[in-house]
C-alpha cells in the first residue's frame, strides 16, 4: 500500500466510512512497524487498540458453576446461625477487653484501652476472630453483589 492509499483509508476511517476489512488493513499497517512519518500522528491510537486487544482473561476459568451454587446455598442456609456466631464473636471480643481493662486498674486517666498482644496464642485468636469478621462481611457483601444464591434465584435471566 502506498501513502496515498493510507491517506484515503485514514480519511475514511475518521469519517466512520471504513468497513471492517479496511480497518484491519489500517491496523496491520500500524502494527507493521513501518509507519511513514506523515502517518505517525494516529499511531498512538492504534497502539492502544493493539494493547487493549491483548488483554485476556486467562486467569478466569470457565466451568459449570454447580460447585459455586452448592457452596452458596450452604452459606445461605448457615446464614442465620452465622449471624448468631458473629454476634457472640463481638461479645467475646468485648469480654476480652473488659478483662484487660479491669486488669489495668492503675490507668485512671481518660485513655483508650490499649491491648498490645504479647502472647502468640492470643494473637492468633484475635487474628482468627478478625478474619472471621472480615470474611463474614466479605461474604455478605458478595451476596449483595448478586453472586449469592439468594440473588441468583431472583435473577431475571434474559432481559
Amino acid at each position: 500500500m502506498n501513502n496515498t492509499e493510507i491517506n484515503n483509508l485514514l480519511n475514511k476511517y475518521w469519517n466512520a466510512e471504513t468497513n471492517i476489512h479496511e480497518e484491519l488493513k489500517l491496523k496491520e499497517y500500524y502494527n507493521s512497524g513501518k509507519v511513514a512519518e506523515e502517518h505517525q500522528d494516529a499511531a498512538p491510537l492504534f497502539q492502544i487498540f493493539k494493547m487493549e486487544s491483548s488483554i485476556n482473561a486467562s486467569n478466569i476459568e470457565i466451568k459449570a458453576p454447580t460447585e459455586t451454587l452448592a457452596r452458596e446455598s450452604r452459606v445461605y442456609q448457615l446464614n442465620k446461625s452465622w449471624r448468631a456466631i458473629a454476634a457472640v464473636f463481638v461479645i467475646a471480643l468485648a469480654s476480652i477487653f473488659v478483662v484487660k481493662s479491669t486488669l489495668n486498674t492503675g490507668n485512671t486517666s481518660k485513655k483508650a484501652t490499649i491491648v498490645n498482644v504479647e502472647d502468640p496464642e492470643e494473637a492468633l485468636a484475635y487474628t482468627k476472630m478478625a478474619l472471621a469478621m472480615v470474611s463474614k462481611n466479605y461474604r455478605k457483601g458478595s451476596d449483595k453483589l448478586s453472586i449469592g444464591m439468594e440473588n441468583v434465584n431472583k435473577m431475571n435471566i434474559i432481559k
Partner: protein
Amino acid sequence: MKTLLSFALTLSIFSGLFGQTDAIDKFFQSYQNDENFTMVYVSPRMFQMVSKVMEGQDDQEIKELVKDIKGLKILTTEKTPLAYYNEAIKKIPTSQYQVLMTVRDKGSNVKFLTKESKSDVIEELLLLVGGEDSFVLMSFVGQLDLNKIGKLAKKLDLNGAEFLENLDKK
C-alpha cells in the same frame, strides 16, 4: 507514672512497627485519649511467632492467610457507633484507599477499603463496621489475597463455633 511510661513505650513501638501505614496510624492515634475506645495491636514480630504456633495445627486456609499478615490493628467502641463510623469514613484519607465494597444490612454499615498493589493482592485491608451495637475498625497490613479470604469464609462457617470455644477458655 509506670503506666504512663509503658504507654509511651507502647506508642513508640507502634509508630515504629506501623510506620509504613502512617495515615491510618494517625487515625488510630487520634482516639488514644478517648476512654470509650479499645485498641488491639498485634505487631509484625508477634505474627512471626504466630506462624510458629500454627505449625502442625490449624487449617491450611487460615495458615495461608495468617502467614501473609504482617500487622493487625483493631479499634472498637460501643458508644455512638454509627456516629463514629461516619466520622471514620470522613477521616480516612480516601486518596490512599479504594472502596472495595459497601454493604448496608439491617441498620449496619460495612465498608471494605483497600490499598492495592496488583490485581487481587492487597497491601492493606480496612474493614469498617458501624452497627447499632458497636463500631469496629480493623486494619490488616500485609499481602492479602481476596480469593483466599473468600475461601476462608467457607471454612469459617464450619469452624466458627470452634474458634469461639477456644476464645471462651481464655
